[in-house]
């Protein structure tokens, strides 16, 4: 079941198109990664969902009804451009934000003390925000974002500014929130975190949604017809033998006794057709299906997409 749906959203700024007819559907209870290179339009999309910017066309639905301003106030939103009032004390400020989200003073105070204890930061309560480091302030912001227990959480680049230990802590908290029933959308460049916690992703490049789906489906798509061979022998003979049957995507020859090559078989060619061909010209050490990392998928998808759009442009000329 989907909680949020974005339908054909476009947004044009003065001299560039931030989003071009983007659609996506976010399943209830998922952790949804919004990926893409810098300037792809991720933050614009998140701002449109949060009613900070209005789309030129298209619509956003929450639970099958158009998303309203009042819905937005119940979302837990951690913006990319996030800050706190510098002169205010941490505890007081956290209570202030919690009350704006509709919690009573006492309720906010109880929950905040629980969170502060959970993160082991009780002694920050009376400090002024300007005394905190950037990472410390981020923790406080994270707490204020999730404090009112929203069903839908949106984090824009939540891991930026965190050291690996705290990034891990944050990951665990995001997983815990999901287990408690919340749906989490977050944008990131941090592909390792995507692999670890996301179950669905959308890859946005140059204002377009170029890849969408569950992480398992995406990986399957990018691993089909892909194999990795480790061998010893003549690389050029192998290349010659594979001509017309497979494309060599990647080669490494650090160790001449154990060269590696990643292949993508052409359509209609099966692994069992390839193995004898390879076996004839080199000594196979191993032959296995290749599962690319999300990082590789990201780079490949973006590069393929850029190639297509640039050839489109060339064709237009």
């Amino acid at each position, binding site marked *: 079941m989907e909680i949020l749906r974005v339908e054909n959203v476009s947004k044009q700024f003065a001299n560039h198109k931030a989003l071009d007819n983007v659609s996506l559907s976010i399943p209830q209870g998922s952790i949804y990664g919004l990926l893409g290179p810098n300037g792809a339009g991720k933050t614009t999309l998140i701002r449109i969902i949060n009613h900070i910017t209005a789309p030129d066309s298209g619509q956003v639905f929450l639970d099958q009804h158009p998303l309203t301003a009042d819905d937005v106030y119940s979302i837990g939103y951690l*913006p990319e451009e996030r800050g706190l009032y510098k002169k205010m004390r941490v505890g007081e400020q956290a209570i202030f934000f919690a009350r*704006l989200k509709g919690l009573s003073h006492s309720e906010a105070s109880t929950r905040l003390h629980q969170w502060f204890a959970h993160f082991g930061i009780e002694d920050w309560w009376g400090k002024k925000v300007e005394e905190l480091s950037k990472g410390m302030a981020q923790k406080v912001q994270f707490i204020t974002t999730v404090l009112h227990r929203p069903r839908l959480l949106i984090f824009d680049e939540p891991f930026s500014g965190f050291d690996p230990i705290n990034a891990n802590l944050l990951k665990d908290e995001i997983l815990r929130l999901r287990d408690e029933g919340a749906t989490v959308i977050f944008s990131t460049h941090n592909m390792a975190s995507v692999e670890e916690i996301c179950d669905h992703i959308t890859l946005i490049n140059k204002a377009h949604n170029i890849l969408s789906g569950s992480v398992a489906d995406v990986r399957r798509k990018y691993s089909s017809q892909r194999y990795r061979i480790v061998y010893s022998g003549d690389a050029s003979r192998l290349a010659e033998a594979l001509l017309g049957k497979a494309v060599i995507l990647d080669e490494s020859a650090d160790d001449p006794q154990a060269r590696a090559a990643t292949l993508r078989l052409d359509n209609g060619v099966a692994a069992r057709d390839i193995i004898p061909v390879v076996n004839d010209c080199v000594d196979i050490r191993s032959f296995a299906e290749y599962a690319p990392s999300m990082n590789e998928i990201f780079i490949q998808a973006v590069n393929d997409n850029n190639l297509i759009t640039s050839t489109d442009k060339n064709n237009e000329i």
Partner: protein
Amino acid sequence: MKSKIGIVIAREFKERVRKKSFIISTILMPVFMIAMMAVPSLMLMFSKGEKKEIAVVDNSGFIADKLVSSDEISYFVFDHDVDSARKMGDIYGILHIGDSILTNSSDIRLYANDAPSINVDEDISHQVSKIIENEKLKAYNIHDLDQILDEVKTEVSLRTFDNSDEGSSTSSLLSYIVGLIFSLLLYMFILLYGNMVMNSIIEEKTNRVLELMVSSIKPAQLMLGKIIGVGLVATVQILIWGVLIALASGLLIPALMPANVAADVAAINADPTAAISSNVDMVQALALFGNVGQIIHIFVIALLYLVGGFLFYAAIFVAIGAAVDNVQDASQFTGIAMFPIMAGLIISMSIANSPNSGLAFWTSMIPFTSPMVMMSRIAYNVPSWEVAVSLVVLFVSILAMIWMAAKVYRVGIFMYGKKPSLKEIVRWMKYK
């Protein structure tokens, strides 16, 4: 929804009132004002220390012994010629009166060793003129001349009464001062608190708190909360000052007043046309400060204009704050906002001569200048309908201003990095 504005107001208010600078300025301002009033008399007291000695060489023979020494200047007769007198370097100066002074009034010279002083010049010319006048009168051989002169000596004390209103007497000097103090106060307030609103908006932009805020509250509500929060701080500050002044005037002044002045004040408060014996302006000023009813009346109108003027200009400062990224960029736009404020102040200062002129009337109707100008006219018994119309115009304009500011604010707060032109800001108002 309303309670969200309340939360923002409470934050803005608490954060500012708790600041040391607020507490210090609230206490120091009245002290500073009292000190300002006390400075002239203090300076007089200190300057009394050095007495100016003047040797008088009187060739005419009838002036030197009639010169009266004062606390400041002492005259002594010097019986030698001028040249030897002028050798004395340790006194203030030597006054040489020629023998033809009766027929030639310029036959008098002062040789000063020290820097010339206006007080000394005035004292000498005043005294010598009087002595010569008396000497000339004596030549007519009038019987009982001294007595006659004493009896004819008169100094008129003019009091002005408002013709339409039986109850009050007005002193134009007093009205001028009261009006000036009020419009200066307003000028200060608009600048001080208008800038405070603007800076708090710029601060939110530079701190990047805004995006966090607008995911919880409508921008218009946030803006109103800020204006009202800062406005409350201003109001509290005025109220504290008002209470301090009222206490001072209600308790201190009667206690410190000399008995005959106190009697006059009581008489004038009971019946404004009562005859009085001491200095008119002073008695009227004291009567005004002792008259709590009138103080409250002026205070209420002043408060309305303070609030109105603040809201009107706060909306303008909000729009400026939302349109720019930092305080430096803001200065160009604040200059535009400052212009009508300054104009209002200058007009209100020049209004004393004709408080009911066309200029005064129209500038106290136009909301850009009306708070300042009307403040300075209040003390001149402006017709109530004028005050009412001016207030209505002001508060309706405030609504329009705030509506426009909200438009600019909504668009402006997420425009980082680029300083917009005035034309672009106007275009933002048309955005939906």
